[in-house]
């Protein structure tokens, strides 16, 4: 379970998070929506300890990320996968080495050549061919880098996945593929996910629940159907495009 408790975070005079309370139970996929600059990525980074709150706490797998020791943080992070908005692949390493690094820890002695079959399988899950393994990130398109980033995040078979705009920059076919992957990981393997997205299709396709971050707080958190039926004017404005499309189809 991932639990945010009264989370506050400021950057200088900018008070981004103003008391966020949110619980993501085991096995749930939560889609996190909100206006650009509302702090969605900031909220996500707190769950993996990349940011420390000014006030409040984040509890992951029973561990407080604010007070955890370096050893405890390392242990939790090995069980957390993070898909970065811009992939954040290591430029000086090949795709194979990027995946291998995520799959093993510092003390692992498993050589890269033994990892080949696993790497091919990981790439297949994100619809990439094996010949990508030998390439370096600079040789890949933006969409391919994004998909390798997803493959890297799931390489260690984590129980928790944090997705920061996983389908941004992808074509509709590959975006669908990633949506399906998020869905399968949650339903088949019980992975707990928080998916930050602007893509309402992705949010409604993969989310067991949707949460709307607005003005530093969670404005609404509910099932997709409840969100669509919400009378809250802010929520209505956010999902209005989806409603227009739905009504055009019926």
């Amino acid at each position, binding site marked *: 379970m991932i639990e945010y408790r009264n989370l506050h975070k400021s950057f200088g005079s900018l008070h981004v998070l103003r008391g966020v309370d949110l619980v993501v139970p085991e096995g749930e996929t939560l889609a996190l929506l909100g206006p650009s600059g509302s702090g969605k990525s900031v909220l996500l*980074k707190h769950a*993996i*300890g*990349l940011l420390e709150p000014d006030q409040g706490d984040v509890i992951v797998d029973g561990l407080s990320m604010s007070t955890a020791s*370096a050893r405890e*943080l*390392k*242990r939790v*992070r*090995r069980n*957390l*996968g*993070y898909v*970065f*908005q*811009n992939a*954040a*692949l*290591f*430029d*000086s390493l090949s795709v194979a080495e990027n995946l291998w*690094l*995520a799959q093993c*820890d*510092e*003390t692992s002695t498993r050589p890269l050549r033994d990892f080949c079959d696993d790497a091919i399988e990981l790439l297949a899950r994100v619809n990439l061919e094996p010949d990508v393994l030998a390439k370096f990130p600079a040789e890949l398109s933006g969409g391919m880098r994004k998909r390798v980033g997803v493959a890297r995040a799931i390489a*260690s078979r984590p129980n928790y996945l944090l997705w920061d705009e996983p389908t941004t920059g992808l074509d509709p076919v590959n975006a669908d593929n990633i949506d399906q992957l998020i869905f399968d990981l949650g339903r088949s393997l019980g992975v707990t996910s928080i998916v930050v997205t602007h893509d309402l299709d992705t949010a409604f396709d993969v989310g067991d629940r949707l949460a709307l971050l607005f003005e530093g707080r969670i404005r609404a958190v509910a099932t997709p159907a409840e969100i669509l039926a919400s009378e809250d004017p802010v929520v209505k404005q956010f999902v209005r495009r989806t409603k227009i499309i739905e009504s055009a189809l019926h």
Partner: protein
Amino acid sequence: MESGEGWGAVVTVLFATVIAGIGDMLRFVGRCTLMVGQIMKVLPRPRLYVTAAFQQAYIMGIASLPLVLFMAFLGGAVTSQQTGAQFTGGLPLWVVGSVLAASVLTELGPLLTGIVMMARIGAAIAAELASMKVTEQIDALYAMGRDPVTFLVTPRVVAGLIAFPPLTVLADAMGLAAGWGVGLLSVDGLTSADVVYGMRYYFRPWALIFSVIKGGVFGLAITFIACFVGLEGRGGAEGVGRATTTAVVLTTIVLMALDVLMVPLLKAF
């Protein structure tokens, strides 16, 4: 009254600026100390970094060797030429050999190597790590449960300790050879026997050991500063450029300061 108030405001602003500067410097030193502590914790576990350290040392050493040797050549050449040019007949010519040996072993060899490596390796490391910082690759390392100090910094710092001393020795050899050869060509009346006699008159083993130690200390300083400044980078491409410039400027100052501080060590033996 107004003049007094004006001076009061100036003094207040100056005082606040100085205090803020001292505070920034103390925080900087504190963060440096923390990183040194983190490196010391990793050092007793060589399996985590030794392979990467030797790879980095190979890159640092082999890739930089031609430039280091070229600069050492120029340093040795100008030393013997300048020494010879200063003579008015009051000193025997074999002093050229002594001055050459003393200058190259204690100063030019390590310092020129350090300056070349700072510009070539230090700047590259700072740019690489700053670039990784601004593109979230450092965050990605943390997210994987890996420590950037273990994975990135320690191998580079250890590589500096491995690569710089041999480069310094090779630079010393090239500087002495270049000074010898150019001296014969440019200093009237100078013979090889003069140069050899002068070098042997000055030379003691501690001078060479000192040169190697200096090379190692410079190597540590260059790689540590580059890594530290690189990991502090922020702000996109401009931040990468700023980190690189800061690394070069700071390393230059530190190398010169270390050069001065190590003189008593030379005199100790």
